């Protein structure tokens, strides 16, 4: 259960679970595309790929085309993904070094990256690597992915602990990349970002949620362009 709903006390209906967020993101993945999934909810997307869709998963440490994970404790130390999990060897896989891995990313060859976020701004700025009061954080591959993937999708819970908005007018946390997010999928909404014009367009809501309900949990102005449908 999401803590924020309890504190704000105004959820009109249940929020989606982490798996449902991942499933919604996975629904839009395109056949044959090269996809990098971040740690956390993004990593769950791999479990919900629609039937008939084949995606090449990429991990920063130098692997393309992995699928399932090994059973817990049975991982091969020489076959790891960038999240510290251990995929199985499958036909069509490729191994390479970090130079090549980031050439792929920086060169704009990743079709979609799904990342988590601490904050996303109306114009698509992303903050996901450091909480200012801690003063230290980990960038990893996030800056390269956010700045250079063809499509950047954020998969996260809509609000932080205490009901604090994560979708904001302007990020107060250090940026990962400015003006980079194309879509935000949360436990209550799917929002497209028109990066060129700095507009957030609400496309879908969790069942039982209205524009006003979502707006009340959002720190940036949401616009509408056509019908709003339930997240499915």
């Amino acid at each position: 259960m999401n803590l924020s709903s309890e504190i704000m006390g105004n959820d009109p209906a249940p929020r989606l679970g982490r798996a449902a967020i991942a499933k919604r993101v996975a629904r839009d993945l395109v056949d044959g595309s090269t996809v990098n999934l971040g740690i956390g909810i993004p990593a769950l997307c791999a479990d919900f790929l629609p039937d008939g869709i084949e995606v090449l998963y990429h991990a920063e440490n130098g692997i393309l085309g992995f699928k399932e994970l090994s059973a817990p404790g049975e991982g091969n130390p020489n076959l790891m993904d960038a999240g510290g999990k251990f995929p199985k060897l499958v036909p069509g896989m490729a191994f390479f070094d970090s130079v090549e891995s980031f050439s792929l990313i920086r060169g704009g060859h990743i079709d979609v990256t799904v990342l988590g976020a601490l904050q996303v701004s109306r114009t698509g700025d992303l903050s996901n690597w450091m909480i200012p009061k801690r003063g230290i954080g980990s960038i990893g591959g996030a800056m390269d992915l956010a700045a250079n993937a063809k499509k950047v999708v954020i998969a996260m819970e809509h609000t932080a602990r205490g009901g604090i908005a994560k979708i904001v007018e302007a990020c107060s946390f250090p940026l990962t990349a400015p003006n980079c997010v194309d879509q935000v999928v949360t436990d209550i909404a799917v929002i497209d970002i028109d990066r060129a014009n700095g507009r957030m367009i609400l496309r879908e809501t969790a069942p039982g949620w209205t524009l006003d309900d979502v707006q009340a949990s959002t720190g940036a102005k949401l616009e509408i362009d056509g019908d709003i449908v339930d997240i499915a």
Partner: protein
Amino acid sequence: MKRSYNLAPVPINKISNSFAEAVSDIPSGASIMIGGFGGAGGQPTRLMMALRDLGVGNITIIGNVAGISKTTGYGWPDHLDPIDQGVFFESGQATKITCSFPVPGTTNPISEIEKAWREGNAEVDIVPQGTLIERIRAAGSGIPAFYTPTGVGTPVAEGKEHREFDGRTYLLEEALAADYALIRAEKADTRGNLQYIGTSRAFNPAMATAAKITIVEVDEIVEPGGIDPERVGTLSTYVDRIVLRDAEDPLP
């Protein structure tokens, strides 16, 4: 703002039925990388023939060695007929080439490319080989420009930014991309992972990353898993079209 996206489905079947089909959408005015090094091995000879037969003009060629094989036999065992980018100057299709080695040491006989240059029909942009491959690699790697020590104090440096790092002078060189890359590999799997053999790598892997459309000519096509994951030289993400050579093809 980063590049925009257009997520049309990637064709799962990247295999073209013929060399002619694979190059059929190359328009006049296109910039085209041609892989390999020069001499036999690693050159997409059938794709080159198909491009010549397509007949489109005003093309810019990017490749390492040009115009010397046919004239000198450079790097071709006796039983093979030399083929090189000179064919596009002989045919009048190419108006420019960026390369490192456009002419042999001697002028007797003169190569097609030198002839076209002397007659004012072709621009020849001569780039140090290491700068050429690094510019291509940069284009595929999202690096718009880099500094190199090579060429400082030579005609290559003219008009370029000079800058000192740690007491040594370097030149600024920019990324070099293309519309198409025609490359050669030993083997492809049906997804487009490529395996190379011996010295036939040369310019092929970098070019695969630096073009909008990469077309590869291979001697064998296998199912995924038919290439050792430790031996994938070009990732399938970079490959758009694959064409299989005839096992009996007399061209190298």
